[in-house]
């Protein structure tokens, strides 16, 4: 016999898992849970409502992410899911999970510095090469292939690499 409470929390967990499986279309190894973009899943009446927070103001992936969350929830059997965007508190790269950071590194992208202090924001800390781990690296361009990345180069192994900027 399952209590109402258990059933509700089980339902919420299923909804959360479905939403959490959605990946960032620009960095498909990262889920929105890894990124810290997925904020909350609640049941309002007979439908599920997912709260997400945008990463960068101009991130074109957010519309796509909202749509994919709706699709994922419908596929998991939730009818008429809603996605709500919350601006406050503002997202920061500090919310990226440790697992997310490791996935990024394995994918060849240097993860953001652990604390998005102003020093980190201005790249005054060394960024380690995701290929060889060397900290003998240099910034090539502040603005990379997407709004969240900068282009760096490793001076040890000579490989260029993306760095997920602190934000």
């Amino acid at each position, binding site marked *: 016999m399952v209590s109402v409470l258990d059933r509700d929390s089980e339902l919420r967990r299923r909804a959360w898992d479905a939403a959490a499986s959605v990946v960032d279309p620009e960095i498909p190894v990262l889920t929105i849970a890894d990124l810290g973009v997925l904020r909350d899943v609640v049941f309002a009446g007979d439908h599920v409502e997912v709260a997400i927070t945008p990463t960068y103001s101009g991130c074109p992936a957010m519309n796509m992410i909202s749509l994919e969350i709706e699709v994922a929830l419908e596929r998991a059997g939730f009818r008429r899911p809603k996605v709500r965007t919350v601006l406050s508190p503002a997202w920061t790269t500090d919310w990226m999970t440790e697992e997310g950071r490791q996935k990024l590194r394995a994918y060849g992208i240097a993860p953001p510095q652990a604390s998005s202090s*102003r020093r980190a924001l201005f790249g005054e800390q060394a960024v380690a090469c995701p290929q060889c781990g060397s900290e003998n690296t240099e910034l090539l361009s502040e603005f990379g292939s997407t709004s969240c990345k900068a282009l760096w180069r490793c001076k040890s192994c000579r490989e260029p690499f993306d760095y997920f900027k602190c934000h």
Partner: protein
Amino acid sequence: MATANIQVSETPLVLYALRRADDALILGHRLSEWCGHAPMLEEDMALSNIALDLIGQARELYTYASKVEGKDNDEDKLAYLRDIRQYRNLLLVEQPNGDFAQTLVRQFFYSAFADLYWRAMMNSRDTTLAAIAAKSEKESAYHLRHASEWLIRLGDGTDESHARAQAAIDHLWAFTGEMFAVDDGERALIHAGIAIDPGTLRGRWLQTLSNVASEATLVLPENDWMQQGGRTGRHSEHLGHLLSELQSMQRTFPGLTW
């Protein structure tokens, strides 16, 4: 067939959000004009990325203005379906790209201001504006660093790059005063803790400028005669040309969506 202009009920808070949204949209559009034309690939990506940040900020501010106004003027209508006299952006941001130096100096003047402005606005009593500020502040910090580095490179570069950078500073200087001006409606928001007084930032803004200018061997103008009008809808003809391009799709195919 032309689409009718929308009417906006400009309460002080709606007007406040529209002004900042228009600054970001118009400057973002100007930078997007460089897409595919910048002097090198990295710079093409940088300017396009900065444009994207600004247009993202504009969207959040328009969405908020729309919510506060409470009619059915959504972000797209606000961006595309107003007449030139209804735009509230600074004259600075509508100035043409000119050469690369002019684009960078315009960006430098604006970003040095936006960086301070949004950081101060993070303490706004209005939680939506504070949240928008928290994002915009970090973005502006990157934009400012990018423009500062270029200004130093150009000013302390060749005779030609130095002369062009100096000419751009002299030309755009008169458009900077408007950033610090405040009218009665905005003053009420400042007293209520919703907005901050930009006038209090001018000293630090000048300090940023003079630090970079001295490293760039460039000189800031002495004159303090300032051109104003953008905040009340009196614009240069440059904005008209920009809007005819910005609005052309919505004016030709009303209600078009992606």
